[in-house]
């Protein structure tokens, strides 16, 4: 055992920029689901290019234009032999919103409880950092994870255009489509943070948030089955993220994504209030 003593004259500690330390750590903590989101996004985009030659030869019009499938993908499809249609079907359908939104909801919900589980939140909040900042940095990290997944998807689509001849992608509308998907991710992040603000266990919080996203997907599919249930569509989040429409049909009701952004924001802010008021459990 060393027997050094603390020197008599110790310099006053120099100030050090706090930076976005919590945000960076939250992204590192979320690396597994983030990597999953990027992997699935790239994989689905590249598979779309791979299966396009075969899909363009298959007559699936009657199947894909049914109301049930419309419910599953979130849009009425036309021109089934065009690459944007295949891409919209595979990469920007309601199922993809479920997948990527679910991943974002999980990351958001786990962000805070994970630091309760690993014991860092007590030590972090005993430093000069407010709960509000801690929460907002965590939220920002979740949004950055969503941005990364979206950018990987767009990059994979660009690779698709190198593989598929006459891909006929309208890049302006592709970015608009991606913005719609990001709006859904924003909603999912807010939902996740909301659950994470009062749960102590990351898996429980993640499960609850993903459960709500999955419930929204069920509402979407049931709502499209019959006109009797069409009201169900409007209470679910998927109705406001018709990501396939702008890519394929070049049309979008502009305020729909804003509904998701506003709801995500409200959920996130409510989560912030809850997180600021609650007692944090000891590990």
């Amino acid at each position, binding site marked *: *055992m*060393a*027997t*050094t*003593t*603390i*020197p008599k004259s*110790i*310099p*006053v*500690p*120099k*100030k*050090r*920029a*706090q*930076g976005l*330390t*919590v945000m960076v*750590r939250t992204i590192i*903590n979320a690396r597994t689901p983030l990597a999953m989101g990027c992997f699935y996004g790239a994989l689905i985009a590249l598979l779309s290019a791979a299966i396009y030659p075969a899909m363009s030869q298959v007559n699936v019009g009657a199947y894909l234009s049914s109301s049930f499938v419309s419910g599953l993908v979130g849009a009425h499809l036309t021109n089934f032999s065009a690459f944007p249609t295949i891409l919209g079907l595979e990469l920007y359908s309601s199922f993809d919103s479920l997948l990527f939104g679910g991943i974002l909801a999980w990351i958001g919900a786990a962000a805070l409880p994970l630091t309760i589980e*690993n*014991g*860092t*939140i*007590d*030590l*972090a*909040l*005993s*430093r*000069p*950092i*407010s709960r509000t900042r801690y929460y907002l940095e965590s939220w920002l990290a979740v949004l950055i994870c969503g941005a990364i997944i979206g950018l990987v998807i767009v990059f994979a689509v660009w690779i698709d255009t190198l593989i598929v001849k006459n891909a006929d992608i309208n890049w302006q509308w592709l970015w608009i489509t991606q913005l719609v998907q990001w709006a859904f991710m924003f909603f999912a992040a807010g939902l996740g943070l909301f659950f994470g603000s009062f749960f102590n266990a990351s898996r429980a919080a993640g499960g609850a948030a993903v459960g709500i996203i999955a419930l929204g997907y069920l509402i979407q599919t049931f709502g499209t089955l019959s006109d009797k249930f069409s009201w169900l569509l409007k209470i679910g989040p998927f109705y406001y993220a018709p990501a396939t429409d702008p890519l394929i049909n070049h049309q979008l009701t502009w305020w729909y994504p804003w509904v998701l952004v506003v709801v995500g924001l409200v959920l996130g802010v409510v989560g912030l209030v809850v997180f600021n*008021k609650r*007692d*944090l459990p*000891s*590990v």
Partner: protein
Amino acid sequence: MITQEPVIVIDKLEKSYGKIQAVRGISMSVERSEIFGFLGPNGAGKTTTIRCMLDVIRPSAGTIRVLGMNAQRDKLAMHQHIGYLPGDVRLPGTMTGKQVIDYFSRLQGLEPVLLNDLIARFDVEIKRPMKSYSKGMRQKIGIVLAFMCDPEVLILDEPSSGLDPLLQKVFNEFLLEEQARGKTIFMSSHIMSEVEKVCHRVAVIRKGELVTVEEVEALREKAGQRVTVEFGDAVTEEELARIPGVNMVRKSNSSFHFNVRGSMDPLIKALSQHEVARLQAEEAPLEEVFLKFYEEPEKATATKQ
């Protein structure tokens, strides 16, 4: 920072979890450059009090001030001057010690000026991931995290748990050095022998209530001396029990064992009347006094029943 009032002031602190009252109106203060022991058995409310001080949990009533700052209202300013060691140091398994130190130093917003000294003194390993650390090694990292930015006030929750006796000795020496440098240290423990080596005063908490705040010297006086005498002639227990200051007289084989509080003079004078074959006196362990603070109210209740 110059403040007139004590460094830590806890005033009528209460904390309830539903119907359970974890802390019941405790008040105490800690002076500058004091090492203050906060004693109590498991579940007494020590950690709850400490977590209220850090605003990780919110008091139901009462106030806490550290360095003149309100622990809730001025917490960001207050936390700039505080080093905290939790009772159970748990850190992310994938982070290395170095990453953990860098992370918390950044959050503190200060360079870790004492880092190299602490690493050398406590022989801390910082290159391995935390998941490979034993409890003792994690505790050492926790100590480094609390002290590395040279804070004015240290709040330590059972700091020596997990440390081997050699390291405990090093840690106690370190605490005394820090005290000499003007640091104020508030440390909780459930082991009296642990705090009596370094603390000037101790508070004892039991079931959320403050039982006493006393100087360690006063407690020592209360504990008195433990005496063993072997006589060469006939002496009765009653005769010994009548000597002023003598209590808890017990006979085993040919020896008498008892405690003496206050001056030894009446005992010595009484013993001089007899033939003393063997005499042994030592300080009674403070643990006995400490345990009495818990036992007495329960015994009283049992007697009433």
